[in-house]
């Protein structure tokens, strides 16, 4: 298929349809509302279900109910709305339901702002709601990657019977880029959805629940989930290296839009004969633990800079992984402020002790 120029939010919507997810529930919130507006027009064309709910609380519970049919369902929202969805996400994780949730992140806490941010990292990767659970978290850095990861999200949700969250900052949602969709989305075979609610005909009734009053049963369920998360850690780690080589003295670690800005900074630093590499996690859960460790401990790496559009959330995971083996430096902007490549360049030069060229 030829490339088409699309806004991130619309491309995400179309990608879901390509993955056979024809069931969408939503509530308007900036900066992701275009997903809903796009699907309000597209869903009737593909004969799918489109419903605007009364709140994110209700919408998350609608996808909860809808997912028990065994059909692919999803919702999209932004930070404050995602907070409201945490109740249902916890229940769906406990009941092992495959759903896809997109968070086009804006600045917080509270009502915060409407501009791009990466400050929901903790919420996405550490559970978010109550209880001992995890969800798969994918973070695209381009619109094309958002399309690819959106389709993959449905596959992973079904593969693990688990909620999957794709998080992009407001930039991913609002930016326009050329993207390419597959004519037919092809994916490896999945296990049959023999757990779906279809009516107790010629079988015993199915109950989908997260309630286990017997502590032993609840513990068993928690360890069952834990084992599933271990499988995800084994099989689903995704990341990308950019210009990582033996000449690097400095390693940047960043994800999403921030990683892209770091790439620009790296290209410009290269022109000045400063060799910098970038490690970009694509899955935030599972986190590329070993892979980051292996890059960080390389002898040629003298400086490690973690850059985020937050006050330092992924930074804590990098600290955890590096286990004090090397000194880590953090640079972040937040509240909707997106660091420029110049800012990143300035930080790198500060670390390596090079004088910053003043603009002519």
């Amino acid at each position: 298929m030829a490339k088409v120029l699309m806004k991130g939010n619309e491309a995400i919507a179309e990608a879901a349809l390509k993955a056979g997810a024809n069931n969408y529930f939503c509530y308007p919130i900036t900066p992701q509302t275009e997903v809903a507006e796009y699907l309000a027009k597209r869903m009737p064309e593909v004969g799918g279900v489109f419903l605007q709910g009364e709140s994110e609380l209700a919408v998350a519970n609608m996808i909860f109910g809808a997912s028990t049919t065994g059909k692919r369902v999803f919702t999209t929202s932004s930070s404050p709305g995602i907070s409201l969805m945490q109740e249902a996400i916890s229940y769906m994780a406990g009941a092992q339901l495959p759903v896809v949730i997109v968070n086009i992140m804006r600045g917080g806490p509270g009502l915060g702002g409407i501009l791009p941010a990466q400050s929901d990292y903790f919420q996405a990767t550490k559970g978010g709601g109550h209880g001992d659970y995890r969800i798969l978290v994918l973070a695209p850095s381009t619109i094309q990657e958002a399309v690819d990861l959106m389709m993959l999200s449905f596959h992973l949700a079904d593969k693990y019977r688990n909620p999957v969250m794709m998080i992009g900052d407001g930039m991913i949602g609002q930016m326009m880029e050329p993207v390419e969709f597959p004519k037919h989305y092809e994916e490896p075979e999945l296990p049959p959805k023999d757990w779906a609610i279809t009516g107790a005909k010629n079988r015993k009734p199915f109950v989908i629940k997260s309630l286990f009053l017997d502590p032993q049963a609840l513990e068993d369920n928690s360890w069952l989930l834990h084992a599933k998360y271990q499988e995800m850690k084994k099989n689903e780690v995704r990341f990308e290296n950019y210009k990582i080589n033996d000449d690097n003295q400095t390693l940047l670690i960043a994800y999403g839009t921030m990683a892209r800005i770091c790439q620009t900074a790296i290209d410009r630093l290269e022109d000045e004969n400063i060799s910098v590499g970038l490690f970009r996690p694509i899955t935030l859960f599972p986190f590329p633990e070993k892979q980051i460790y292996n890059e960080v401990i390389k002898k040629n790496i003298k400086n490690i800079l973690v850059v985020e559009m937050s006050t330092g959330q992924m930074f804590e995971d990098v600290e955890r992984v590096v286990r004090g083996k090397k000194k880590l430096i953090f640079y972040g902007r937040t509240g909707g402020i997106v660091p420029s490549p110049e800012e990143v360049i300035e930080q790198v030069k500060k670390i390596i002790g090079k004088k910053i060229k003043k603009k002519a």
Partner: protein
Amino acid sequence: MSSEDKTIFTRPEAMTDVITHYCPGCTHGVIHRLVAEAIDSLGVREITVGVAPVGCSVLAYNYFNTDFLEAPHGRAPALATGFKRLRPDMIVFTYQGDGDLISIGMSEIVHAANRGEKFTTIFVNNAIYGMTGGQMAPTTLQGQITTTCPAGRDLENTGYPIKMVELLSGLMTPMYLERVSVHSPQHIIKTKRAIKRAFEYQIENTCFSLIEILSTCPTNWGRTPEESTVWLEENMLPYYPLGCFREPEKEKD
């Protein structure tokens, strides 16, 4: 059994052969049975899914011989909406108490009803929180003593008890709303009829339906089962009038 013997009373097929956890004298068991009888008489057991609430009937899924979902507190109408939109060919009902439906779940039920979602809500109103041990509910009557209004419900402080079917009656969307009670055999028969009618409206894909059922809670009311039925009749009936509040057929005229 001789050929002249006739079975006149059996367990409905839509109920499981399980002893319930409900307190002696609680009317949940009666209401469960009426719902199961309606499902059986309409022949829809194999295409029915129930949505259980949080509250005393949280374990309803153990007692119905149909597929079931367990919802977060108050969200059963949202789950039912999601399910029914994807499977309009199936029969969906929520079973909810007063705290679940009209305290924490008020938003979900009002909007589901207003959208005209084609599912059925069985709303059990016993004017108290049962499972947590007798706290004030949105339907607790004026002066009624509970553990969180030990001096009796004070309307100045907490507002008036909410009349749910009257509140929903204000919506323009066509729907079937009826309030019934299970404090006497005569009323149980009327309740059975109303529940069946609610399911019929769903099967015909006509409208949203909600049956409010006045119910007793002897344990948390601090009364015997018999005293409880009298208390219901003397206190709840005057405030919560029985009858059909909305019915699409009548509105056509």
